[in-house]
């Protein structure tokens, strides 16, 4: 009896070992890849950020905190970080302002095949080429571009807008890039709301405004927050969009980091600034973690 039990236990331990091996074989390659291409590089960047100079081409860096010190000493970097955070907040806000009603129409007004088609039309550009989409705005916004020509045709003597290479141009381009994201997350939350709930509120005499503010907005909050966070994070790290649409007005923390790596070649400083930016990202994720979890379900 004891012998039988022990061999059975031995067999299952063997089976378990076999299973562990199969799990390792299946997941190992993917995670090894992620380790070498994401987690090791991020760790290496942390290491570089603590050195006085990059340990390449035979040079030796000393351990120092001066790269981080630079951020806190120079008002220039701090104001750029604030400018990036403001850009992130503004773009998220406009995406919500224009995206939420759109998601509402998709989820509650349009039905059937039309809904499917419209939804796809909204989502497809989001996953497509971001650079080309930003570039296409230069043709619309530039001086004597399509927008100005159109406005002047409708309103003779309208004159110029001078939008290209301004802060608003960057905001327009980024909202265009990320609006589908907000529509997607809001739509998922909104279509989970039972229509009967809205019908019940209406039959009890709730006004449209009450239904919006007491039912639709609170119940879709996880989607709104998820959308806002998922837009805010890439926007504060953007550099291509400000460069193309902002020109000389397009200096943000992202473009300064890019400069450290591609023009100035001060990698330790770039690494430190990247890490401060990453810190901001982590704080945002941590702060909204409970709501994001609900949205993920």
């Amino acid at each position, binding site marked *: 009896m004891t012998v039988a039990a022990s061999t059975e236990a031995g067999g299952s331990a063997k089976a378990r070992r076999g299973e562990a091996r199969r799990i390792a074989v299946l*997941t190992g390659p993917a*995670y090894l890849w992620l380790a070498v291409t*994401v987690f090791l590089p991020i760790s290496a960047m942390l290491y570089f950020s603590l050195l006085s100079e990059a340990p390449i081409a035979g040079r030796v860096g000393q351990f120092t905190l001066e790269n981080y010190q630079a951020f806190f000493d120079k008002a220039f970097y701090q104001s750029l970080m604030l400018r990036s955070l403001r850009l992130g907040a503004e773009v998220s806000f406009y995406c919500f302002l224009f995206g939420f009603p759109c998601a509402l129409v998709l989820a509650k007004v349009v039905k059937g095949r039309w809904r499917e088609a419209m939804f796809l039309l909204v989502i497809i550009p989001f996953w497509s080429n971001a650079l080309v989409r930003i570039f296409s705005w230069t043709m619309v916004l530039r001086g004597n571009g399509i927008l100005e020509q159109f406005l002047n045709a409708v309103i003779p003597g309208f004159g110029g807008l001078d939008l290209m290479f301004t802060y608003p141009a960057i905001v327009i381009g980024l909202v265009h890039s990320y609006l589908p994201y907000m529509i997607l997350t809001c739509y998922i939350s909104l279509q989970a709301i039972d229509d009967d709930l809205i019908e019940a509120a209406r039959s009890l005499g709730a006004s449209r405004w009450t239904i919006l503010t007491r039912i639709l907005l609170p119940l879709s909050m996880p989607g709104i927050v998820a959308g806002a966070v*998922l837009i805010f994070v890439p926007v504060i790290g*953007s550099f291509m969009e400000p460069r193309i649409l902002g020109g000389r007005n397009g200096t943000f923390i992202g473009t300064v980091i890019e400069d450290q790596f591609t023009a100035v070649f001060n990698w330790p400083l770039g690494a430190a600034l*990247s890490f401060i930016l990453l810190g901001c990202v982590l704080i945002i994720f941590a702060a909204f973690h409970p709501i994001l979890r609900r949205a993920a379900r």
Partner: protein
Amino acid sequence: MRRRIGLATLGRVYLALVLMFLYIPILVMAVMSFNASQFYTLPIDWSLRWYEALSGNSKLLNAGFNSIVVAVVTTAIASTLGTAAAIAFFRYEFRGKQVLQLLLFPPIAIPWLITGTAMLLFFFWAGIGRGLHAMVLGHVALALPYVIIVVSARLKAFDPDLEAAARSLGASPAQVVRHVTFPFIAPGFIAAALFAFAVSFDQFVISYFLAVPGVSTLPVEIYTAIRKGFTPEINAISTIVIVFSMTLLVGVARYYRFGGER
């Protein structure tokens, strides 16, 4: 009741306006690529001039070739490794599974600027260097989480009893995979592969940091040209790129429902 219909109509008009906002810049770019004038003057003087110029631009054509090579290799690696991991997550319960699933998040959620500069720094330091091989390393990392998510979504609907039934009817493990498991996850696999291709083909930031002068992909080459002062050839190649990339995504949508139930 009449007011309600009015509001619904208003909603549809609004939706149409948002779609116009999303598509008009792209349409403008596409139309301008057929305009002979390089200063975007109206009315349009239809011409294929810029497409002809493009066919003689070896720099852009090379970059396009590189883009496709990198995307094909990325797709092959990411969809294989990702599908394997998704199957492990589906089939086994094990300690650390949640941690592994959580680890898929950073590659998607960390701004590409940070991932890209970190890759540049590490690859340079570790002797991997820059170039197309480095881009493949980076693109696979970005595509993997999406592959795992898309394939997992398909697997959720898979009934393991099907495999058990096949086994009890005498199928070998290889036969089970070939005739039962794979046909079922095939749509998820195709969606994931197309998506991985699109992620790589459209990727700019990572490629930008890992490109070497002379060896780059289309987005990097387009960006360089824009920064230098654009030529209308860029409209032509950009139009081709965006049409191609949107077609790919329509293909993905055929097999995978973005945003779940509709």
